């Protein structure tokens, strides 16, 4: 009886809450689109005199040109470099110097393109010239002025991020200083300067060493993506080392002109703001960015997978298992069902993977599912990973994970579990509503990816309609060994271990 009463209470309460939240929000949200196509979403939240800004550019590593992986990511690093007016000590001279760098680099590339016939002396000289030209250009830099101004003005959380499908720029300011954000960000969007580009390229190369090459998980994750995807640009996120090492400022310029057009940018602002004031500032600063055509869509489609793929990374570190199944993009009707499936598998202490693998069988230190990996604008992966406990292997973790997926296919999920998952998803939304920066990012994300920020709320109703039949149908449809990629991180020679073990221990 008691169980039932919880369930009823839960069922009624959050639906009401979401409807109420949406109504409440409608009153406080203003939206407008400038003539050049740039879209603004403004949420008024007067709890404290602070404002969060979140600029979402609908581009990411999927748009990296062939041979130039890592290019979209460079922009995240260029934001701090500033503009013609910010970060410069003498822009006219610096501009000339930067052009000179590119001219020498062109010459160098021409010589290198001769391959075997290239004159090593010429290459050496041009490399030295290039270095000199770069140093000259750097002599006009007012280092990190752009970020310093933000920080001096009380800006917090200044950062940017690059994903497969998005590049985002964000920070928060005291509410009396919002004009600074309009000025700086619009100026950079309109005309970034590829200042210190080649030093920053080294920094990105270091970032790759840190995140991928010196990290067992990073290596495994990269290999999983590159194996699961043959053609899809989801193959790599940070980019290949050799591509990064050869990126050019002029590549970035071309990329900017194609992808940083106003119609491809959405800006969300949340906090203590007056919507009319925001509109005036948007007109003043952002309307001047010239309109441009929408960038091309990614047309490369991943061919169907016709057999299981298995890969191994040998590493002296402890084992990790990743398993990934192909799934459709976020606009597909099964998208919300896959979210529910991931929650059933791994949300909290009641998730199937925690219960079975961590708690009961004790074969894993941690085990979880991610509904969409690495992103979901294009068809992607349903990822399951597991960190085996001491004395347990990736193999037994794989078996246990597989058994759970088979269970989802064989048996209908019980109503209590389904309800619990839905309740948690709803409550999770409510818990996000008291945080400016989180809200700004969500509003922008839902607008760009689902066409309307309201989807943040209405999506919950879609989740609510997911049935146990849906869960079973979707499990049967996607958890197919044929479309699976399994990646192991194991010790060198671990495949021989079981036999040796028996030899050593049995008498």
């Amino acid at each position, binding site marked *: 009886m008691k169980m039932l009463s919880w369930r009823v*209470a*839960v069922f009624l309460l*959050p639906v009401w809450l979401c409807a109420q939240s949406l109504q409440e929000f409608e009153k406080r949200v203003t939206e407008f689109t400038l003539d050049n196509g740039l879209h603004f979403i403004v949420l008024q939240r007067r709890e*404290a*005199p602070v404002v969060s800004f979140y600029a979402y550019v609908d581009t990411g590593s999927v748009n990296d040109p062939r041979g130039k992986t890592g290019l979209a990511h460079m922009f995240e690093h260029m934001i701090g470099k500033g503009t013609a007016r910010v970060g410069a000590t003498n822009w006219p001279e610096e501009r000339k110097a930067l052009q000179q760098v590119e001219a020498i680099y062109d010459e160098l590339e021409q010589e290198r393109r001769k391959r075997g016939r290239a004159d090593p002396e010429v290459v050496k000289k041009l490399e030295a010239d290039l270095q000199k030209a770069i140093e000259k250009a750097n002599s006009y830099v007012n*280092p990190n002025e752009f*970020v*310093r*101004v933000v*920080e*001096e003005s*009380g*800006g917090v959380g*200044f950062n940017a991020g690059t994903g497969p499908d998005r590049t985002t720029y964000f920070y928060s300011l*005291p*509410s*009396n200083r919002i*004009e*600074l954000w309009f000025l700086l960000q619009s100026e950079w969007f309109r*005309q970034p300067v590829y200042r210190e580009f080649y030093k*920053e*390229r*080294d*920094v*990105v190369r*270091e970032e790759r060493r*840190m995140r991928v090459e*010196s990290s067992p998980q990073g290596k495994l994750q990269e290999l999983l993506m590159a194996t699961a995807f043959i053609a899809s640009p989801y193959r790599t996120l940070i980019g290949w080392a050799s591509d990064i090492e050869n990126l050019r400022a002029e590549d970035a310029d071309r990329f900017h*002109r194609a992808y940083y057009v106003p119609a491809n940018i959405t800006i969300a602002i949340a906090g203590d703001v007056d919507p009319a004031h925001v509109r005036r500032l948007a007109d*003043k600063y952002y309307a*001047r960015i*010239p309109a*441009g*055509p929408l960038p091309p869509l990614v047309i490369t489609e991943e061919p169907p997978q016709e057999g299981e793929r298995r890969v191994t990374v040998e*590493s002296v*570190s*402890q*084992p990790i298992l990743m398993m990934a199944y192909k799934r459709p993009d976020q606009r597909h009707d099964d998208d919300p069902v896959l979210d529910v499936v991931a929650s059933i598998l791994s*949300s909290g202490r*009641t998730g199937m993977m925690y219960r079975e693998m961590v708690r009961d069988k004790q074969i894993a230190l941690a085990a979880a599912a991610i509904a969409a990996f690495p992103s979901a604008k294009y068809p992607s992966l349903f990822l399951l990973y597991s*960190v085996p406990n*001491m004395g*347990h292997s990736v193999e*037994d973790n794989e078996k246990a994970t597989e058994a759970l997926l088979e269970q989802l296919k064989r048996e209908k999920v019980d109503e209590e579990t389904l309800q*619990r998952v839905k309740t948690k998803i*709803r409550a*999770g939304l*409510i*818990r996000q*509503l*008291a945080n400016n920066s989180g809200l700004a990012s969500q509003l922008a994300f839902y607008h760009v990816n689902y066409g309307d920020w309201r989807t943040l709320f209405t999506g919950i109703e879609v989740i609510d309609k997911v049935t146990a039949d849906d869960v079973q149908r979707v499990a049967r449809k996607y958890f197919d060994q044929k479309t699976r990629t399994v990646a192991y991180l194991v010790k060198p020679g671990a495949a021989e271990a*079981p*036999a*040796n073990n*028996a*030899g*050593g*221990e*049995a*008498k």
Partner: protein
Amino acid sequence: MIARSLAALLAGGLLWAQAPAKVPSLPGYQELKYPPLPQVKIPEIAVYTLSNGMKLYLLENHELPLVGGFALVRTGNLFDPPGKIGLADLTGEVMRTGGTRDKPGDEIDVQLENIAASVEAGIGETSGTVSFNCLRENVDEVLQVFKAVLTEPEFRQDKVDLAKTQSRSIIARRNDNPSAIASREFSSILYGRDTPYGWDVEYEHVDRIARDDMVAFHKRYFFPANIMLALQGDFAAPAMKDKLEKLFADWNVQQPPVPAFPPVQAKPSPGVFLATKEDVNQTFFRIGHLAGVLKDEDYPALQVVADILGGGFSSRLFRKVRTELGYAYSVGANWGANYNHPGAFSISGSTKSESTTATIETILGEVERIRTGEVTDEELKTAKEKVLNSFVFNFDQPGKTLNRLVIYEYHGYPKDFIFQYQKAVESVTKAEILEAAKKRLNPDQLSIVAVGKPSEFGRELSELNLPIKPIDLTIPEPKREASKADSASLAKGKELLQRAQQAVGGAGKLEAVNDFTMSANVHVTMPQGAMNVTQLNRWLKPSHVRQEQELPFGKMSSYFDGKTGWLSTPQGTQPMPDIVARQVRGAVLRSLPLLLLSDRLPGRSVNLAEDGLVEITDASGESVQLKVNPETGLPESVTYQSLQMTGQPATLVDAFDDWQEFDGIRQPRKVAITRDGQPYAQVEVKEIRFNSGLTVEELSKQP
């Protein structure tokens, strides 16, 4: 096609449209005029003391229909007993997972998650917390769980075991992440590896910790007078106070006041500490020494020092190491003061192996620079404005004010500490900054921890002209506690062993054994599946062993003379790897005819661990526990630790059955082996022969 080329054209046209001259001129950021910032609302917090002595802090916040809170408990892992490091952490974990008197943890999981609520517990370095969060409507129900977890956790054994298993896995994984290694070793070096601030949890500690320890730890620290309770959310404070008063009215346990945390007693450890990790191409470093506490008079000045040195995108280190040299993705400095004990001043980051020495050198140069010359006016202005203009973010969520108040009280800081800090930063001068840097940054005390691949370091670390000390990352294997030995237990151990000798045929028979041969079928069950192995094992005095095995994938053989040996597989023959040699040595020690003679073999000690249990240890420290059947005198089982091929230790038990006589000596025909409690292998002995005249030549001959 047409549309696309048109698009390309338009994009081309943009280039020209973008020429700077066409843009209407807008103000520079220097010309912007800002209105005054609206007054910040500082929320009111109601403070009470409940009749059982708990202090209560309530903050109404009606923005969302949620209620959350936490109990802050004066405890911490600084109180871990030296032999049981990790006890506080495990206690915090199992307080929640192990359930309460009325309800197992698993039931609590379902109960809470059905209503999207949470109750969590944890114990950190200098405090413990139990927290909750729920929708307003569920607050009564969730508070019941919260109270039960806080006051009457049951520490059920299955969850104690689970938490210990997980702790062991965490230890096994602690050398996988180079950044985590640097941070851990840095603390150990700064605070001292044998102090509560610098020590690490090892397998032996986890093995020693039992449910009773957790119960006792909880009992000692979780009592009303030692707890501050803070709640915020959608409630009326007076009503909530009454509710909590009633809820906790029956909880009145008392304990003596908790003593002060142990003092930090560390001496500087200057020099380079190098941990070699072959699978990385970056060096992860930490450079620093002990810092101070937040109460220090020069703390605000030191915060400014650290900020200018390495506090953000516009800091000196960021500019030099990242922006100018491109050596690092991340680099930063932190003064790191704590509330109640000296924190660590640290500079951390990572750089490609090749630029390791250059990066460290650059950083040391910047440390020297900031303590020998005044910062610029501009740097000071930036540092001050950052603190002052972003001050409002200390109040952007009402909960921040609540948390601050509770933390300040917990550590004995004044309520307005943050405002004092703001004022101090506002008035700090360049001279004060230099003085603080000069006094508190000590280049000759810096410990430099580097985790990386020295063979690729480019310039040698020795160019830094500092002593270089290696860090050994080996994870110590669990030491099984040797049982306490005194003359009585030694005598009794010998007596029991002699009883077993008698039961299998007598010491004389055993001592006459010069060699033996045993053939067996072994059925191994493993996670990957089952496997049948045929084995032929031969032993010759004093310590020659040969094993031949037929496995599903081919034949394997090995020979070991007590010191060295070889291993032959279908892939070829190689010198016996250390890990295999250790397993073979263990197998020889355990081999029954020899094990039973341990009282007569040199280097072995025999001791009675408990009734019916003899502990036998060989010269290398390897030990085995032999259980003897009290009625028949026959060996029942042996228990021992063995290293797996993965390098992880496991506990194995060989249980004997089906005794038969071979050449006058009784031996088991069946041996059931379990590994960490799970069935692992069944051995079926086909034949045993003693003294058949084996020779060293025939045993050592390679296939």
